[in-house]
């Protein structure tokens, strides 16, 4: 009998107890607000009372031109913002990491720190700093271009519809270039020396070594960076807000989903905040990010070959 009792496993309460603090905090600050946002998006305020309207808010957002013009504009801008970030940030990040991992490089830790530093700065500092640099009145950009005789290339980029979004996207790239660089640099360092020696024995040297051996080995890291960039870009708000204001001028050309959400939810100047429509925009953003991450996890990540090192 004694043996039987000790054989039956007692319920392991301590697991629950240890999980409880983290779960409750997470539920309180993440899951509950998320659920509440999803709920809010299904309601609407009519004559000072809240009524259930199903998906009507979403229909308005997608198809009623009072909302949809702004929404599709913001979504397209956001996609463009993401594309610029991906196309510029990742190749440069990889190149920088490759340069940093050259064994003979001097002052490596200085470069590493200097390039990574902007990532640690607050958006406000980066935003205002670049706004000043690019200012046609007091900025150093026109002066510097003048020094090299290229003054004619200068334009008030942040004020022109055609350039503003690209400019802001490049500032964002400048700020976050350190992230892919440091992650890829770490991945490059973890490639064992023997592998490279073996490659040399097989006659793979120089640039071919990078393309044929190192790049395939760091592909999973590049995947992770892409998904981080995706999530970051579709949540982006701070940089636009500090550089172009909540109206994301000129003429909404730098409006992202984040700034649209801000204006809708909190209101702006005479526009009163609309929590329900705001929650609708937030829900759409959530779904976009969720589907992007799901696509990566279930489709792309499974196809990336991982090598045992």
């Amino acid at each position, binding site marked *: 009998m004694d043996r039987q009792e000790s054989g039956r496993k007692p319920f392991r309460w301590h697991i629950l107890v240890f999980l409880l603090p983290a779960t409750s905090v997470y539920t309180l600050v993440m899951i509950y607000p998320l659920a509440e946002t999803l709920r809010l998006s299904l309601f609407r305020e009519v004559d000072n009372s809240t009524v259930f309207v199903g998906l009507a808010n979403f229909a308005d957002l997608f198809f009623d031109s009072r909302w949809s013009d702004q929404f599709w504009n913001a979504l397209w801008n956001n996609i463009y913002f993401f594309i610029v970030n991906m196309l510029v940030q990742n190749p440069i990040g990889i190149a920088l990491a490759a340069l940093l991992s050259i064994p003979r490089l001097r002052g490596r830790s200085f470069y590493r720190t200097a390039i990574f530093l902007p990532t640690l700065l607050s958006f406000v500092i980066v935003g205002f700093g670049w*706004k000043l640099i690019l200012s046609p009145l007091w900025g150093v950009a026109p002066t510097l271009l003048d020094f090299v005789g290229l003054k004619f290339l200068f334009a008030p980029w942040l004020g*022109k519809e055609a350039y503003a979004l690209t400019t802001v996207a490049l500032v964002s790239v400048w700020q976050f270039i350190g992230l892919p660089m440091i992650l890829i640099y770490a991945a490059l360092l973890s490639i064992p020396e023997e592998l490279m020696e073996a490659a040399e024995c097989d006659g793979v040297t120089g640039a071919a070594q990078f393309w044929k051996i190192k790049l395939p080995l760091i592909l999973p890291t590049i995947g992770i960076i892409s998904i981080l960039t995706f999530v970051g870009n579709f949540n982006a708000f701070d940089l636009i807000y500090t550089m172009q204001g909540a109206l994301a001028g000129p003429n909404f050309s730098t409006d992202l989903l984040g700034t649209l959400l801000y204006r809708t939810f909190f209101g702006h100047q005479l526009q009163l905040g609309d929590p329900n429509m705001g929650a609708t925009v937030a829900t759409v953003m959530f779904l976009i990010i969720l589907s992007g991450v799901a696509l990566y996890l279930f489709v792309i990540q499974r196809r990336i070959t991982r090598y045992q090192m």
Partner: protein
Amino acid sequence: MDKNTCKAGTRFTAGIAATAFGAAFALGAASVKAEDVTLTIESWRNDDLEIWNSKIIPAFEAQNPGIKIVFAPTAPAEYNAALNTKLQAGTAGDLITCRPFDASLQLFEKGHLASVNDVPGMENFSPVAKSGWSTDDAATTFCVPMASVIHGFIYNKEAFKEVGVEAPTTEAEFFAALDKIKEDGNYVPMAMGTADQWEAATMGYQNIGPNYWKGEEGRLALIEGKQRLTDDPWVEPYRVLAKWKDYLGDGFEAQSYPDSQNLFTLGRAAVYPAGSWEISGFNVQADFELGAFLPPVKTAGDTCYISDHVDIALGMNAKGKNADAAKTFLSWVASAEFAEIYANSLPGFFPLASHDVKLEDPLAQEFVTWRAKCESTIRSTYQILSRGTPNLENTTWVASANVIKGSESPEDAAKSLQEGLASWYKPQQ
């Protein structure tokens, strides 16, 4: 090692207990001492903290022993959101600084603001002054008007003398003066940028516009649906704005509001399309003599109209615990004494009550004389017309900036504004 941590832990807890006890004791002592009623003012004017604390509050407290006032401002951009949250949670102060029009009207309708109809002194305000804080039928007023701001142009007197131009009064003179300044080449003719967009609408369109739509007449006709934004009186100001482009500084497209202010106060620009709220800042920053002129009229002798826009008021928390004390304070805000202190400590914010207030600042005095010369109106987009989506005020910002930049023609801009307004506003459909 375990023992040490344990000991440190005990000491730490003891420390917290002692602090908590001390704090409780201090609080207890404070509440024993203060039997007075304390009123807290919610405000977005954190720039005015110093003036409230050193001038306005002492003046009131000297006359009303037993009432203490605490001025507790929040950052302007966060004010509306923070106030709403506080009101819903029941932690807002007794007195609430009111934004004009719908933001405050909504608070009143939700029962957060009390009516101030019976506050002594309310009879000193004209209906236009009260319009920003009254129900649509004007029956109930829920905030005591404090101040308005007047639009016009501030100019650099020395620059004008140097170039040899006079302050213009008509549209033709205005552009002639700008041409001459531009030719001279020493000054940027006009300091304004379109980066922040609101300047284009507020200091551009709403500044010169009333002369074309005839102030209140046009504004009310628009609200009643008798005029359209595509009618000439509303498009004409855009045609004039479109000409401004040539007189703004290089790269004005990316010039922000502080950039424009600095450009002017550093003496690099001759004219600044202004609101009177700039006066106190400019007095400190600029080391040249400042002058002001009215928005130019079309032909000499025309009636002039100015935008004398109601901007700030003070209301009473409907759920406040000290309603009587709050009423006492509000009635003092309606008095001549408050008007005099406020107007002179904040030149450029003009009292709305009918008291005869003497202004010491010459520039502010210049602005306020316009009230006697011209017809006053408020910004056309503020009352009722910005209630829906798309919001007329915000779309006017974007349209005005586009017109000045030249990326949209005046007619197209007016057309898109009209379409936006008509999409939700019945009288315009």
